[in-house]
């Protein structure tokens, strides 16, 4: 034996090789397909928006930890990186750069650091940044560049409405779904991501791929995404069956807007989602219901962000009331 002292510590003496850093970087990997699609659809501007968001998130986290809180610098843990990417994915690709920076500041400083940093925030930081921008700059935040193939220009991008906006406005002015269907991209285009909208939310296939990767790697469980999608499908399905001319079908609801991005990447954020499986089910149902209510009856065409943030607020309550069943608490087995 060498001169190093023997270590005495309590059991267990072995540890799983998974670390929170690895979990975070798995999420980053899962976001790559959606990012590639956004590059294809929006060109270089997608790269610019994402880089600005990521860099400003990392810089703000660094500055706050170094000069304001004077704590350990943890920017390499991957959490600020994810916040940056997710924030970018929730923005139009032609948003002015300074707005992206403001959004990042709100996400990191207000939504994360002021609550105590990683693990202590109640609301999803990227969504807080996004919603802050949406409320503060509604015009710029809803000017979507339409999908133009090989579009490399940033400023001259043609802007137009998202499928959900077309439907919402159309229905308000008395058009029927049959008329509106011709105005929105086909289901195939929605599935592949050839449509207008936020940077990372368009391509269903890329998001599903990323989501499956996370489930296979056991970073997230299937509960939240599946239950949330089923809830949305059921409620919009009921509306659609009652009056197919006044309501979009469930497939359009799921494929367009932020549902898939929300279901796989935003609602499943480890920090801000419930910690028990029962709780996750309640949480996902809540998000589904609120999303449909906002889409159907609210002023905004899209409601996923708000739905997730509202349910985030309920997570501590859900964690308190939906506990795992304690072993031996109720004796099911008969005693002979």
């Amino acid at each position, binding site marked *: *034996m*060498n001169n*190093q002292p*023997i*270590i*005495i*510590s*309590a*059991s*267990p*003496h*072995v*540890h*799983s090789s*998974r*670390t*929170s850093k*690895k*979990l975070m970087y798995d999420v980053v990997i899962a976001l790559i397909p959606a990012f590639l699609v956004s590059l294809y659809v929006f060109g270089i501007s997608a790269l610019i928006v994402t880089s600005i968001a990521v860099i400003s998130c990392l810089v703000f986290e660094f500055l706050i930890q170094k000069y304001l809180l004077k704590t350990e610098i*943890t920017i390499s*843990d991957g*959490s600020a990186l994810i916040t940056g990417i997710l924030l970018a994915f929730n923005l139009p690709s032609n948003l002015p750069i300074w707005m992206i920076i403001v959004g990042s500041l709100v996400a990191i400083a207000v939504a994360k650091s002021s609550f105590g*940093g*990683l*693990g*202590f925030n109640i609301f999803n930081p990227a969504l807080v940044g996004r919603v802050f921008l949406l409320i503060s700059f509604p015009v710029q935040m809803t000017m979507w560049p339409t999908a133009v193939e090989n579009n490399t220009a940033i400023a001259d991008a043609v802007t137009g409405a998202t499928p959900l906006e077309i439907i919402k406005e159309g229905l308000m002015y008395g058009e029927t779904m049959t008329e509106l269907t011709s105005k929105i991209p086909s289901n195939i285009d929605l599935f592949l991501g050839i449509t207008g909208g936020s940077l990372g939310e368009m391509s269903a296939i890329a998001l599903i791929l990323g989501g499956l990767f996370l489930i296979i790697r056991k970073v997230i469980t299937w509960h939240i995404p599946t239950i949330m999608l089923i809830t949305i499908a059921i409620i919009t399905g009921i509306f659609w069956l009652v009056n197919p001319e006044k309501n979009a079908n469930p497939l359009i609801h799921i494929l367009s807007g932020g549902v898939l991005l929300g279901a796989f990447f935003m609602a499943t954020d*480890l*920090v*801000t*989602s*419930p*910690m*028990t*499986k029962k709780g996750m089910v309640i949480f996902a149902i809540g998000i589904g219901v609120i999303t449909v209510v906002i889409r159907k009856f609210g002023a905004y065409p899209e409601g996923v962000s708000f739905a997730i943030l509202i349910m985030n607020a309920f997570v501590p309550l859900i964690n308190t009331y939906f*506990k*795992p*069943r*304690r*072993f*031996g*608490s109720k*004796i*099911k*087995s008969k*005693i*002979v």
Partner: protein
Amino acid sequence: MLKTFPKGGIHPHENKITSAKAIKKLPLPKTVYVPISQHIGIPSEIIVERKEKVSIGQVIAKSGGYVSSNIHSPVAGTVTKLDKLIDSSGYKKQCIVIRTDFKDQSNFEIIDTPLQTEIKLSETEILQHITDYGIVGLGGATFPSHVKLNIKKDKIIDYLIINGVECEPYLTADHRLMLEKAEEIIVGIEILMFALHIDKIIIGIENNKKNAIDNFKKLTTNNNKIKVAALKIKYPQGSEKQLVKSLLKREVPKNGLPLDVGVIVHNVGTIFAIYEAVQYNKPLIERVVTVTGKKVKNPSNFWVKIGTPVKDLIDEVGGLPEDTRKIINGGPMMGKAIKNTDVPITKGTSGILVISEDEAERKRSKNCIRCGQCVFVCPMGLEPHLLMNLTEKRMYEKAFNEDIMTCIECGSCSYVCPSHRPLLDYIRFGKSIIKKLETDKN
């Protein structure tokens, strides 16, 4: 479908390096250090004096109460000291030090004794032998066996479960015993069937010991009372409550015992010790110990006399590797780190694990990211992150209400935590404080 328990559990690397190595006899130790509290319960009372000559198997400390056990001399020799020495718990405990007399070791060469199938004793005599010969649970908890077997009249027991799960990584003591002493174990089971009037027996073995499963199946083909069940490889499958749930779908109530659902669980090692005590009047003076570690030169399984210092075992496997940083008494999930190799083997020592530099140190604890992994893996349905927080904030009453006392300390939560939080350490601390508060109140 392999049987298992429904909620929680983990699957650490098995690392059963020694599973193909036959149990060797460790040479007689020069000196043995026998602690007088090797079991759960009241320490035994020393009945020998310094300089007294003792023979092998002689009682040297007698049971100190009902939940206690006799302790016998593992060797023939002379008592040289009665002293307080550090044992595997890390505390100084009263020990009887005996210098071996190499000339006189005639009795109890049990390992080579022929199989004795005929049960000659009566029920009460069997229980008396188990009490007298210091049999305790050899699975690790070292609960005196006679207490477990003394069933009150109002309890009805219909199942005896034999625990051959050995879910701790690295350890293979039970595995080897099941391969080499299977027939004796069957006789041991028959002894208990006879003494307790139970005719439904299940031997539960984890599926990574297929040869042991096959072996028992072969031996019990004509016996419709003993069943052999293969269990899914999942830690902590060997925990009593989880095992009963897996095999019989019966759930031991909170703070209850398997007895409450009509089941008695015994480890295979204990069954073998009972066989020896009943058939050969042999007290519990030796047991199988696995000495292992990734860098250990010649990891092995040994028959070891109780009281042998760990040093002797380490020497036998080729000494401590250069970069040893941790020595564990037991397995990696629940074993205790020991300070040096002077610590003696006790009735509860199932293995000695040597861990080298790269795996010895814990990583720094980071913020909880609320991923819920600890909740998913807890086999008892607890919320380790919450219990740790409550203990940290000294909210013991709240922790008590969140069932902190039902924690079985399996360590799955600490194992899985991606932020390396010391969950189990805080839970243990909380439990000890609550225990103290409760005794203070009474």
